[in-house]
């Protein structure tokens, strides 16, 4: 066993290092990923060890980064692309949605697009505009893409390894406010499938479902509710496309209640999809409507207001109370 405590950012770094070592076709591409090691240092030291043609500082052009990654993939490479911040993925959105996602289907399955697009996402770090967004639903809506988000260092390590190995394009959302959170990573463990949800805390009164940055919050909520004598189950979905509805269903059949928590706006968000599916699957088990806690239908606010905008302990507890009151 090789267990080491590391921060989430470091775990991704180790995972990428492993991928570069294991397969000469793996490439890292993006802005500032080389000497600087990325603005979050996720690729720190990789260029030094693998050279400038494996860890590529690209021109400042997101459409160019993803578009050329598609070409490289057509040529047999496996690019892992970094988008510096969530709000900067949109110049590349065209390439991702109109080209990357559809290539495999258009080529009747003859072509593979083993591209990982890493996007640090979400708020809570006091950043300026375009640095705190949660656009996962915009990608999950597009067939042909896989969308995942780890919540802890161990998953970050293993999910990245699986994402790099995947022959499908994976949009890999990294919860930037958890980059510095440390956890044990067992680099020799045998991980479950990439799309499998985890029950991170068992409970019997209500299910909290979250992913990425909100998992830790939901664990705190469950602990706080526990002190009030309530037993909450917490699910880490890990994958947003596909969603492991079987795990959610099993949990809801047990608890009868579901609250979905994410940072992105609730309106047309991933919580809406989960609520609809679970209502369909668990109609006779539900004791209350599925509730959602998330951002508002408003632009992500300036830093001094983000605490009001982001789901916090009180807001989630409030939803728990409302659900239990039915």
């Amino acid at each position, binding site marked *: 066993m090789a267990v080491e405590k590391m921060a989430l950012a470091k775990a991704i770094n180790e995972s990428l290092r492993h991928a570069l070592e294991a397969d000469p076709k793996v490439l890292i591409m993006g802005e500032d990923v080389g000497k600087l090691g990325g603005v979050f240092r996720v690729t720190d030291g990789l260029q030094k060890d693998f050279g400038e043609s494996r860890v590529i500082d690209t021109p400042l052009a997101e459409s160019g980064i993803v578009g050329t990654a598609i070409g490289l993939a057509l040529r047999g490479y496996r690019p892992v692309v970094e988008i510096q911040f969530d709000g900067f993925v949109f110049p590349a959105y065209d390439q991702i949605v109109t080209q990357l996602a559809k290539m495999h289907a258009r080529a009747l399955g003859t072509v593979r697009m083993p591209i990982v697009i890493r996007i640090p996402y979400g708020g809570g770090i*006091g950043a300026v505009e375009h640095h705190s967004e949660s656009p996962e639903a915009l990608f999950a809506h597009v067939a042909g893409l896989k969308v995942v988000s780890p919540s802890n260092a161990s998953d970050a390590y293993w999910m990245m390894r699986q994402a790099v190995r995947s022959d499908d394009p994976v949009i890999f959302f990294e919860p930037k406010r958890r980059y510095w959170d440390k956890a044990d990573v067992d680099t020799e463990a045998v991980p479950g499938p990439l799309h499998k949800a985890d029950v991170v805390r068992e409970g019997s009164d209500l299910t909290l479902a979250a992913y990425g940055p909100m998992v830790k919050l939901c664990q705190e909520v469950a602990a706080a509710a526990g002190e009030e004598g309530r037993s909450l189950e917490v699910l880490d979905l890990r994958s947003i496309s596909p969603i492991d509805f079987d795990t959610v269903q099993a949990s809801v059949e047990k608890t009868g209640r579901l609250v979905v928590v994410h940072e992105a706006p609730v309106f047309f968000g991933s919580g809406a999809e989960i609520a609809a599916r679970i209502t369909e699957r668990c109609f006779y088990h539900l004791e209350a409507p599925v509730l959602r806690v998330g951002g508002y239908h408003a632009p992500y606010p300036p830093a001094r207001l983000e605490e009001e905008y982001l789901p916090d302990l009180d807001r989630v507890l409030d939803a728990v109370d409302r659900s239990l009151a039915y």
Partner: protein
Amino acid sequence: MTVESTAARKPRRSAGSKAGTTTGTKRATRKSAPRGEGEPIQLLTPEGKRVKNAEYDTYVEDVTPEDLRGLYRDMVLTRRFDAEATSLQRQGELGLWASLLGQEAAQIGSGRATREDDHVFPTYREHGVAWCRGVDPAKLLGMFRGVNNGGWDPNGNNFQLYTIVIGSQTLHATGYAMGVAMDGADSAVIAYFGDGASSQGDVSEAFNFAAVYNAPVVFFCQNNQWAISESNEKQTRVPLYQRAQGFGFPGVRVDGNDVLATLAVSRWALERARHGDGPSLIEAYTYRMGAHTTSDDPSRYRHDDERAAWEAKDPILRLRRHLEATHHADDAFFEELESESEALGKRVREAVRSMPDPDRHAIFENVYADGHALVDEERAQFAAYQASFADAEGV
């Protein structure tokens, strides 16, 4: 362009230091485009010596000693403001700051070349241009403090909001300029962007639209050598000013640390635009002396000696040397400016410290101009939720 063709030009407005006081002359009659091939256009050496330039001297022949002092004052005050913002960030008053240190001449020269009715499309580092446009410097700090995502009325001083997504604003500027032309107006538009931004598709698209529609827009690229950690070679294999040629309009490289040269070249380009001669590209060759932003650590990617070499070309120092050598400024001037700088620093500091956090309900303000039922619903829920705390606390 010949020297004769410029001799007929009317005297130009002065390069006065007060914002919004410049009133442009009628359009120049020049048609051809002077350009700097390779060596940047320079009118003031780093030692502060005035060098002759047959093509561009005419654009600054009206600049009086008083104007020179005005340009100097602009640069000193802008640098002082910038330093204050950097230290405010260090003290936790601002979340982030993008310093313009080293780029004062590029910004003041071009900013002072604009006319009141011109329109400016900045990125996030154009504090000196904002100063020239008469935007209250304290207003620039709101978004860096995190109390808003903009903070000024872009039409108030014809200075658009800072743009963080790299290159986007060059298209907005081009569209605006297309509108100016459609309206038959004779104002010009200037778009600022960096060497890194030149790699974005949007910037190439802006160049092409501007050329195709002969839009009165000046593309002002501050090549400060770095795009965060990436040097020029990672953005371009041709000198940036040469890009313009492929799109069908002229490009010039100017010494971006020479305020007189940036003033002259910007006047040339803006007047071309006003005259209906279409877009041009200015590459102001300069240097970002500080970090990319306060979150950046330049020691990871560049050497200190590089900075030292550029310090010798400091834009403020060179104009000071010139003012001293020509006796256009005396000790009293510099001393007075010193205390004016201190006062500005103090004012900015106080303004930032007393900047209130926005009302929490502001999240729901201005989401739509015509309103939206969902926003109304969420606003009401939010208010009720907030009120529940007040009840619980017995307030």
